[in-house]
């Protein structure tokens, strides 16, 4: 049976994540479809989901409006693997604070027990590229592209820290849920997308 991985298509770099996922699937030689999804009906058909980079306030508000936020939460809680990138990781968190503004009341999925700081490294001029590592999932070297990136200042006892950059947590994992502050879809390296596709494949077989 072929699997379906969706990229949440509300706002942000949807196409870039679809391309990275397709490359990863080709390299793995698996039978997986990649689709962009937006409606609750489409989301309910998925075996795995990527929440892409973008503006978390926009993605949150609009997925609340069309009813997809509720089904997303149910699917993830029932075990569907999900990769949340930058805004996507913010969406997965239970509280988001902005570095300047403080507490925000944006709609969140409340899946990961993490303390999250938005725009943690500063504004766009401070956005950067740097090598990082995710040793515990066998990705010793990965090129991290951080764009107005968030970071995680604290994690709950059930959340694993996958990567740190300069003492700040930039990737986390809890079961089938992964969140990263950086953008694997803006690099040629498909290692993280491959890891995620394998996770989807394993959860179904």
């Amino acid at each position, binding site marked *: 049976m072929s699997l379906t991985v969706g990229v949440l298509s509300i706002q942000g770099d949807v196409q870039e994540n679809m*391309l990275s996922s397709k490359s990863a699937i080709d390299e793995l030689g698996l039978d997986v479809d990649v689709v962009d999804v937006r409606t609750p009906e489409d989301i309910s058909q998925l075996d795995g989901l990527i929440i892409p980079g973008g*503006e978390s*306030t926009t993605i949150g508000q609009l997925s609340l409006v069309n009813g997809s936020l509720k089904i997303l939460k149910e699917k993830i809680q029932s075990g569907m693997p999900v990769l949340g990138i930058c805004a996507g990781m913010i969406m997965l968190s239970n509280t988001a604070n902005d570095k300047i503004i403080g507490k925000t009341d944006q709609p969140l999925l409340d899946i990961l027990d993490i303390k999250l700081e938005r725009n943690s490294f500063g504004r766009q001029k401070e956005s950067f590229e740097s090598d990082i590592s995710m040793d515990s999932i066998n990705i010793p070297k990965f090129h991290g592209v951080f*764009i107005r990136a968030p970071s995680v200042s604290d994690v709950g006892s059930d959340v694993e820290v996958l990567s740190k950059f300069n003492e700040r947590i930039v990737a986390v994992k809890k079961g089938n849920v992964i969140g990263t502050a950086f953008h694997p879809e803006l*690099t040629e390296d498909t290692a993280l997308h491959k890891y995620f596709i394998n996770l989807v494949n394993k959860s179904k077989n």
Partner: protein
Amino acid sequence: MLPLSGERLDAKGIVSDKLNSIDTLRGSSTVKRGFAHMLKNGVVMDVTTVEQAQIAEEAGAVSVMVLDKLPSEVRKAGGVARTASIRIIEDIMDSVTIPVMAKCRIGHVNEALVLQETDVDMIDESEVLTPADELRHIWKWDFTTPVVNGARSLAEALRRIEEGASMIRTKGEPGTGNVAEAIKHIKKVNDELRTIKSIYDSGDNQELVRMSREFKVSYDIVEQTAKLGRLPVVNFAAGGIATPADAAYLMSLGCDGIFVGSGIFNSDDAKERARAIVLATTFWNESDKVKEAQKMIDERQSMIGLDVNTLELRMQDRGGSA
């Protein structure tokens, strides 16, 4: 991954730092163009006050663009239009979590440097303001902050990208509430992209180099763009967008997102209209949702549109031949 056609690895805007002995790179093409990729399928709204910026954020805008006056007010006021007050830009940066952009005059290097120093997230080298140099645009490779430029054609877009623009938007005709010029510009860019793609696919390098001379850009950037079949940077629609249906139509023509200038805060139903344009941009291919968005606004509250043929000032021509 990002297509990085025309990238300059020795650009002055690229900064190598060491953070506790970890090597980092700021201002690279990946980081600057990548920022624009995060805005895709979103709406950037022109604002002049903190209150408007907050309305924009609540409506779901992906970013706000700070101006001293909305384009339609610039039209009425006449005189010289310059970059906005730094204090207002800073107040807005302190009151919303979404990225904040600001406009500088075409060719005005030091206005752009002031905006970079202010730490805005993106600079718009804009024809809405009075050009400081009709012949030369800013050499944007010197900037760590990404810059967006307007374009009416593929040639103009590639010239700006070769100068270091990290994002392109159509010029349209700002401050008119008339979407016709934005439609004309995106269709022209799409047409020309199809043309160079088919020339590239046919292997006719002789014709491609002739095109590069006509476009007044290097052969390399034409070849790389032709191979891609699209611009190597994100391309938004701008200039004259006033209703949800305007936004949905431009998205259907392949634009990556929408800039709305005077259309929102010059209307009498700004809050509803801001929300409605965001909804129509997100759900542009679901006609029932676009209809619901259009229903949220009242045509009698729309800004009075202007006929582009009788304008005294055509902002789109500014810096266009350079």
